[in-house]
């Protein structure tokens, strides 16, 4: 079995920690790749003429499932492969177009060890263009509590992706 050392343990993380920023120059190729990768064939994600004249947007724009993939990549760049997403919530307030530089920034809101002994960090991620928020995401991601811990090994009653109700 491959020996793998977790990149990040729950104990390394505290509320208020800032994740490394990711800035990415979006092109038409980014948008089209994302649409096809998510099997979204709707024309506003690949046909500029349709997007402008039918949707009234200034260009084609990133689709929602592809933004989810960007958030996942951003979070696991930070956590490493041991990081296991439990739950994500998105709220979209604007579109991301070719020519935009999108910036993802994350802040740890809280950490906890749940009743089963699984460690979780809750991270607020903001996707912005030119200082304007386009999408916000709150993610609950499991992190190992110790070097030998692996959140992916959990199932059934030992994997509770959402926080317990107060």
């Amino acid at each position, binding site marked *: 079995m*491959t*020996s793998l050392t977790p990149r990040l343990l729950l104990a390394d993380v505290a509320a208020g920690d800032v994740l490394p920023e990711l800035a990415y120059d979006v092109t038409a190729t*980014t948008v089209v790749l994302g649409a096809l990768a998510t099997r979204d064939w709707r024309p506003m994600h690949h046909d500029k003429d349709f997007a402008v004249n039918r949707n009234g947007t200034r260009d084609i724009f990133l689709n929602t499932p592809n933004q989810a993939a960007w958030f*996942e990549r951003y979070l696991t*760049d930070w956590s490493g492969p041991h990081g296991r*997403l439990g*739950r994500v919530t*998105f709220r979209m307030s604007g579109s991301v177009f070719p020519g935009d530089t999108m910036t993802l920034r994350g802040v740890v809101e809280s950490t906890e060890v749940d009743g089963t002994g699984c460690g979780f960090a809750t991270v607020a991620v903001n996707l912005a263009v030119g200082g304007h928020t386009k999408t916000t995401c709150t993610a609950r991601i499991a992190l190992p509590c110790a070097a030998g811990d692996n959140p992916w090994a959990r199932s059934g009653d030992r994997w509770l992706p959402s926080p317990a109700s107060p």
Partner: protein
Amino acid sequence: MTRPDPLAQALALVGREQYPETGDFPVERGYVWTSCASVENGNPLFWDDEVAAALTDGPIAPPTMVSVWFRPHHWAPGRTEVALPLQVHFDLKEMFGLPEAVMTDNTIEFHTPVRMGDVLCTHQVLRSISEEKTTRLGTGRFWVIEVVYTNQAGDLVAVESYTGFGYQRPTGAGAPS
């Protein structure tokens, strides 16, 4: 003949499993790599077999791809109609006669990881409908719809929850543009 009360009609659907569907094709690695490439996701869990074997007992798909496996091909032999994703949402718009709608929130909860070769199933459940509300968009109702994903063994894979707001734009003087 009286028109059925749309609220009573909709409330009767709360909690009921609707639109069961099975994925058109098994989960496959080529598509996982296409997805990872689209966002430059270098997580070794998806690229390195040894890492996948050690952490997840073999290759899995990125969790956020869960809805990808249900989007139909752009064309298929013999198909004449395109199925709308989240059909319950469109049913509610129709039922209440609300021409416009937006999705305000989308939450996904991830359970059993998705593995290569899995054939996933899904169904939709209407969870709630609000009283009539007026927002800056117009007057209408909020509703919460869950999309439940399971694998061929019946294990829960993910639950996606959408909050939609179906509405009628305000009319007359003073209405926002």
